[in-house]
């Protein structure tokens, strides 16, 4: 590789070998020093705490997080017997079921109509993308007003069309749906931007040749757009899935897990168990369950997306 830098005198074979060995060592050293900050931080704030969470999940702890009694898998047994945690699991799955298809279908529709070559389309794209710039806390404040029982716009609209008001955040029947609606709105910006990017990277030539064959709008949508978009769609679905499992901010702002634990989603449950009840052992067991869910989702994404995802 670096022969030019070597002296011109005749070089013995084992000298050369020693040189390349030394060079290899230098390269390894250099490589590791460039990677050291990342590896160090990952170890300290990701891998060590993950191991520690597993460890904690096998113990009872005191309120400052120091382990007291080894209980083995008892924490896991207990949470799966606890009606509150089971309810939390159920709510989380329902929430995923509402938000993932909701966000994907709405954003896909928006991305398709915003992909038309029309005058002023940039303005509409900006409008759709705007929710990405709005934090969970701010968005929750916006929706808290819209959901307000008396002055909120949603109930005012219902009033206009003569429907009885709904307790959006207080009625156990509605609370999870309401939080899901606001979450779909918060997700639109990101999913829209990614899907639009996917649409724009489809080769225009495909549409031109379909036009020559006289294909209609919906035919092209079904036969060209959706199949070509499938890798992006797949990516967005996984990310929305994972985000739904990690939902916390809007729960904390809108419902605090209530009413009747209807919106007590997993991360909120972990938060409460750990930082309000100081039960770090059971909270860790719950965190590990969450980790397993997300791990499986990510592996599915890597496996199924393999043809399209080339990291190496």
């Amino acid at each position, binding site marked *: 590789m670096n022969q030019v830098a070597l002296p011109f005198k005749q070089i013995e074979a084992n000298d050369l070998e020693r040189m390349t060995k030394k060079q290899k060592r230098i390269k390894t050293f250099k490589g590791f020093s*460039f990677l050291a*900050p*990342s590896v160090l931080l990952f170890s300290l704030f990701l891998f060590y705490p993950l191991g520690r969470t597993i460890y904690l999940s096998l113990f009872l702890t005191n309120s400052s997080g120091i382990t007291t009694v080894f209980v083995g898998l008892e924490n896991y047994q207990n949470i799966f017997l606890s009606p509150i945690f089971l309810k939390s699991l159920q709510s989380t799955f329902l929430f995923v079921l509402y938000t993932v298809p909701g966000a994907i279908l709405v954003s896909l529709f928006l991305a398709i*109509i915003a992909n*038309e070559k029309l005058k002023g389309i940039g303005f509409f794209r900006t409008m759709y993308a*705007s929710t990405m*710039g709005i934090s969970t806390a701010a968005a929750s404040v916006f929706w808290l007003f819209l959901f307000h029982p008396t002055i909120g716009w949603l109930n005012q609209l219902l009033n206009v069309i003569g429907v009885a008001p709904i307790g959006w955040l207080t009625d156990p029947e509605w609370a999870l749906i309401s939080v899901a609606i606001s979450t779909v709105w918060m997700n639109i910006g990101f999913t829209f931007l990614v899907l639009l*990017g996917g649409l724009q990277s489809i080769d225009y030539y495909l549409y031109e040749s379909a036009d020559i064959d006289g294909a209609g709008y919906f035919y092209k949508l079904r036969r060209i757009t959706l199949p070509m978009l499938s890798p992006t769609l797949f990516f967005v679905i996984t990310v929305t899935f994972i985000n739904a499992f990690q939902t916390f901010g809007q729960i904390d702002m809108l419902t605090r897990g209530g009413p009747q634990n209807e919106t007590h989603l997993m991360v909120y449950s972990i938060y409460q168990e750990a930082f309000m009840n100081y039960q770090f052992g059971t909270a860790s067991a719950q965190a590990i369950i*969450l980790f397993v869910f997300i791990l499986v989702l990510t592996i599915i994404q890597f496996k199924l997306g393999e043809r399209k995802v080339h990291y190496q």
Partner: protein
Amino acid sequence: MTTSLRRKVVFYTLLTLTAFLVFAPTFIAFMMSFMSNQEIMTGQIIPRSLTFDNYVQVFQRFPLMQYLLNSLIVSLLIMVGQLVISSLAAYAFVFIDFKGRDLIFFIFIATMMVPFEASIIPNFHTIRDLNWIDSYPGLSVPFFAMAFGTFLLRQHFKQIPKELKEASEISGIGDFKFYLTVVLPVAKSSLVTLGVYGFLTSWNMYLWPLLATTDDRFRTVQIGLRQLQTQEQLNEWGVIMAGAVIVVIPTLVLLFVGQKKLQQGLTEGALK
């Protein structure tokens, strides 16, 4: 001719209608921030007269300035930290060939499978033991290393011709100098994309700042908004909305300016 006109009408109708619906919650909040409490309570839609009273109030009654400053510092710290650390790692993956590189690469991929929530309890204890509760390092350092950013930059660094690296080696330019003077300037646009992304996500962070701060001197705006909402008892919507609008403006501006770049970056993250 007529079909294309009809098509245009259909699309513009759909676009306008949906844009109106998507933007409505934000628009309403903006309007409310300029309305008196009486106007809000009587269900007005458009403010009769613009009043900046709510904005004055929110700054007077809450340490909003301090919250904004904290968020700015924390977001900038995270942004710079991520750029430096991700670009160093990406450089090693592209330009330095060494044993063990593939293993470390696998470790980076593995980090994407661990949600932050799975490690949040020990992380809280670590920060507490380091005496980093209520401090800028405690709010920012745990987010410096980032696999997504490393992969994004790696993708761009790969486009730099290998010959350039070989030539620099021959003329005796070391790796660090090559990284600083050649690679970083060439990859400027992807650094900007990652920077915007990092700033946006850090500014909007919620759970970690909630745990890692107990004191107004270090609270970020998102937690400030939570304080605002709980303390106001939902009576003064105008003041709360003024606070929310102020929190949202920096990220909205950043999004509007960097939308194209961000979209490219995100799509590449999705496809490569």
